[in-house]
């Protein structure tokens, strides 16, 4: 292992921070908007959709996709920054 332990710890900490933020959003868009606050959001309308229903059957899935791609980009950057990337 080329990186020193402290550097390694920093990398891991930043990784955990990224995970924390992304998983928080993951929870909010699905369990939050799709289940817990669905009634409240259903009072708002977008086109032919009630917003809560839209999140539960469409929006959450789009949000999941964005989350994974944000994670990919962010981690590739972090890997390079800490010189732990593979190429």
């Amino acid at each position, binding site marked *: 292992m080329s990186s020193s332990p402290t550097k390694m710890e920093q990398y891991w900490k930043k990784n955990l921070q990224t995970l924390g933020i992304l998983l928080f959003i993951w929870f909010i868009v699905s369990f939050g908007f799709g289940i817990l606050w669905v009634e409240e959001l259903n009072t708002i309308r977008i*086109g*032919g959709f009630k917003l809560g229903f839209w999140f539960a*059957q*469409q929006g959450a899935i789009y949000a999941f996709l964005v989350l994974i791609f944000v994670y*990919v980009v962010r*981690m590739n950057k972090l890997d390079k920054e800490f010189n*732990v990337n593979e190429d």
Partner: protein
Amino acid sequence: MDLLAWTYLLVGLSFALYLGIAIWSRAGSTEEFYVAGGGVSPLANGLATAADWMSAASFMSMAGLISFSGYDGSVYLMGWTGGYVLLALLLAPYLRKFGKFTVPDFVGDRYYSNKARVVAVICALFISFTYVAGQMRGVGIVFSRYLELPIEWGVVIGMAIVFFYAVLGGMKGITYTQVAQYCVLIFAYMVPAIFISMQLTGNPIPQLGLGGEVAEGVPLLDKLDGVLGDLGFSDYTSGKKSIPDLFMITLALMVGTAGLPHVIVRFFTVPKVKDARLSAGYALAFIAILYTTAPAVAAFGMYNIIQSTSEKPIDQLPEWVLNWQQTKLIQIEDKNGDGLVQYLPDPASNELNIDKDIMVLAGPEIAQLPDWVVGLVAAGAMAAALSTAAGLLLVISTSISRDLFKTFRPEISDKKELRIARLSAAGAVILAGYFGINPPGFVAEVVAFAFGLAASSFFPVILLGIFSTRVNKEGAIAGMLTGLVFTISYISYFKFVHPELNTAEHWWWGISPEGIGSLGMALNFLVCFGVSWLTPPPPKKVQELIQEIRIPKGAGQASNH
């Protein structure tokens, strides 16, 4: 050409394609057989994962399930996609870095114990077998509906096809056939959906059509709420399940998805850690195409069926209703003798019974599409069932040849191990076929089982294995067993022992058997932590292994140790 000829032609062509790919991509070594030599591109792996994941149930039944449960059906949509976020962020990159071939491999090495490995093998076998029986049954049903063959013959033909490419090609053969199967199934799903969306709402994109209008100023979903409400049903856009139950089912499905061995193992096939992350993103993108279309197909189907049957004279129903009545998927009985069809919530006076699979299967006829589209949907359904079955069979054969045989007889040669892997794949195909022909009577319940078990056994120990350096073998074994036993007991009690008590007032805290995997997972976590703290920490070598899998560098070499 008539409908049956088209169906034979398209299904036959798709089978020829799969077999061609299988011959082209034969596996020559155990590494190729288990993980396709670790050389699959992230895009190809994403496509293969999507086909692997989307089963006969996703293709044929999910839309119908949503049709009849409306908003409550959202648990499947969020549950079966949200798991990919967990997989991408918490498991896939680290397991790829670990660089071996199976989930029990990881559990056995990380928890430095062959006992833990064996417990993991048992979980993997149990999950995969329950799941694969349903797939084989699905193949048989598609054959019997479209090709007018007995279900048994359908299962046997399906077995022969899977046998050929899974046994011959291993992971390598499966991966490239799954890529082809994804293309077939998504095309077959989208064509009718796009046409129906256009007819109903004027918008060719079903995802937008769902929010479109069926008449000037009348949104489809509002109209559906109104029509269902007039008949005495609850609103389409609001549900009947309690919030805690919705919450727990969604969580169990998400965590279960992330813990399914046949999905996890797909991420061992890409060359780098970076690729594992990216390919989880691709996989979800390809899955999302179908999963965001399904709720539209569900609403369109419900609307069409009510519009063309409810309060309509029985002798003037559209042709597709009459066609599907022959297969018993639509059943009409004029109970009050008024010559009209009444669709009502009360089973005593309801005159229309619709199988949930009809929403997808009858799609092309409802949209009045040409016969070849019907054949295409048949080929798509078959692709969905075969691809999932093959992925599961590979997990079963790998578990036997590698996790059991190789672990306890490490001296066997690569060539011999490959032969054992092929033999166990063959054995698994035959066993799965047997269960397909003689279904154990609980095919519908096995979904709850498979996800509940994956959630309560694998997910916590893999997660803690990566993110905690303190959790040890005693904790892992105790945790897995607790989660497993608790979840099996709860589901068995309500599904098999006392099915008459399977209602909300008897459930613990209102959690249905479908959602109990979440509680099993929580118990697994608690026990795993508790026992680990009371027993000695893992040895230094394992601590180093954990540090090693946390950084991406060096994944290329890792696969060879």
